[in-house]
């Protein structure tokens, strides 16, 4: 079974969380993030919801320093990653596992090589141990036996699950999931939800999920936040979200289109 590497108590552990403060980011004049404030507590499972194109994936990339905000700060365990040097940034990233929206598997490598790359680069594990770890990770996502396949030979949902196996291979303390259940059948999706919960509760992995799938959001989250027009406009438990009074949140979770978003021309 996967166990977390032994953690010492350092001053760092006192600030174990992710803090996003006043983050702004635009692309070619398009202001996508407009002052995002958000705190992700250690051990919690938080889901970010929001309309397609509102900047959820962009926000996730900021959390691991793949994108740098124009203004604002992001601290991970007390360390500011927006001003971190490359070496320090890599140290911080070692704590993260990321499932990308399109899985982002290395298509020149087999499934096994994809999952073991981090282990080979950062640990001194031998081939047998690595093969074991790969099998464990693949079993967790119900994909054992696909070790020798290339990503091109997998379906979209299978790729997503291999991406997930790769994200957990290094036993990260934070896992970011960008739409983990999109494109999966309901049963596989539910097993992924169970896996997210398992990692969060049994291995106390801090979990950040981006999703449109409200079933999944209600099931896996301690807290749901909504990103709208570049800001976090709502934060609440799944129950509070179901009964949200705010119009935008209520319409989003119930899947109702905004009447004004249609232009009704008179005939």
């Amino acid at each position, binding site marked *: 079974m996967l166990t977390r590497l032994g953690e010492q108590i350092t001053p760092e552990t006192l600030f174990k969380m992710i803090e996003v403060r006043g983050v702004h980011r635009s692309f070619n004049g398009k202001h996508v993030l407009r002052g995002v404030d958000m705190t992700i507590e250690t051990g919690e499972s938080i889901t970010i919801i929001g309309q397609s194109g509102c900047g959820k994936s962009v926000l996730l990339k900021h959390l691991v320093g793949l994108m740098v905000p124009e203004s604002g700060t992001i601290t991970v365990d007390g360390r500011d990653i927006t001003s971190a040097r490359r070496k320090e940034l890599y140290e911080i990233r070692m704590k993260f596992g990321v499932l990308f929206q399109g899985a*982002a598997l*290395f298509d020149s490598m087999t499934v096994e090589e994809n999952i073991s*790359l*981090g282990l080979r680069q950062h640990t001194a594990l031998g081939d047998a141990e690595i093969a074991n770890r790969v099998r464990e990770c693949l079993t967790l996502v119900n994909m054992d036996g696909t070790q020798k396949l290339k990503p091109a030979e997998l379906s979209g949902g299978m790729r997503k699950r291999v991406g997930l196996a790769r994200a957990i291979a290094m036993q990260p303390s934070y896992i970011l999931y960008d739409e983990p259940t999109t494109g999966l059948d309901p049963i596989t999706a539910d097993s992924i939800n169970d896996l997210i919960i398992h990692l969060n509760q049994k291995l106390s992995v801090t979990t950040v999920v981006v999703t449109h799938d409200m079933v999944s959001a209600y099931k896996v989250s301690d807290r749901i936040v909504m990103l709208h027009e570049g800001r976090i406009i709502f934060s609440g438990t799944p129950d509070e979200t179901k009964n949200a009074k705010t119009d935008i949140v209520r319409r989003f979770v119930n899947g109702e289109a905004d009447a004004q978003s249609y232009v009704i021309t008179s005939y």
Partner: protein
Amino acid sequence: MANSTHNLAGKVGRRTLEFMSELGRFTKLVGRVISEIGGIFQDRGLFIQECVTLGVDSLPLVLIVGLFTGAVSGWQGHYQMEGYLPFEFIGPGTFKAVLLELGPVLTALIIAGRVSASIAAELGTMKVTEQIDALETMAISSVRYLAVPRVAAMTVMMPVLTAQAIFVAMLGASFVCIVLLGMTSNQFWGLIPNFFKLYDVFAGLFKSLFFGLAASLLGCYIGFRTEGGAEGVGMATITAFVWSCLAILVIDFLLALMLF
């Protein structure tokens, strides 16, 4: 009229600024490649694999380039010297031309153009499908893991490939002169040792090393900055090919000023 002049000035200014910032980012990549060059020892397998791929994949092309370059040089040499100079000079003349210019430059234009385009396509695809982001989040430097082995392999292999091309070119030239133009073997080869300078060999291969370096760095740079899906990758491929060809010609000129 005034307006269009204004526009033109604005356009030139903007282009210049773009070029300067582009140059700045390219320099930054070069700096990172240098600072992470130790990566070849950490991932020796990647470097060796790149060398083998480059060497093996490029060999047929190198042989063809070399053969025809040599053949045409021999034929042209014969045509130009006929009636002015003894045929004994065709051999040394061809050898110098092939060693100093034709071998390094033509091999570089074909191999480096092709390889830098393929590097740009490969890294560009990885960029637009977020594979580079994935690598970086795994705390693996994309420069160390992707750029360093390619640049190092290309820089090492270019002189090797060029040497092969030069060798084959001389065979091609001798074939044309001896078999097609009826010279004796001694007529063709006889004077070459008298004109042979080790410095020329060094200069020719040294040039090709720079061509390999420039072309692979450009391929990596253009690959890494690719945006916008399949179309972006297509653009990156063409850009890498064109830029590395231009770079080779410019570098050839600059090195000629310095070396000869």
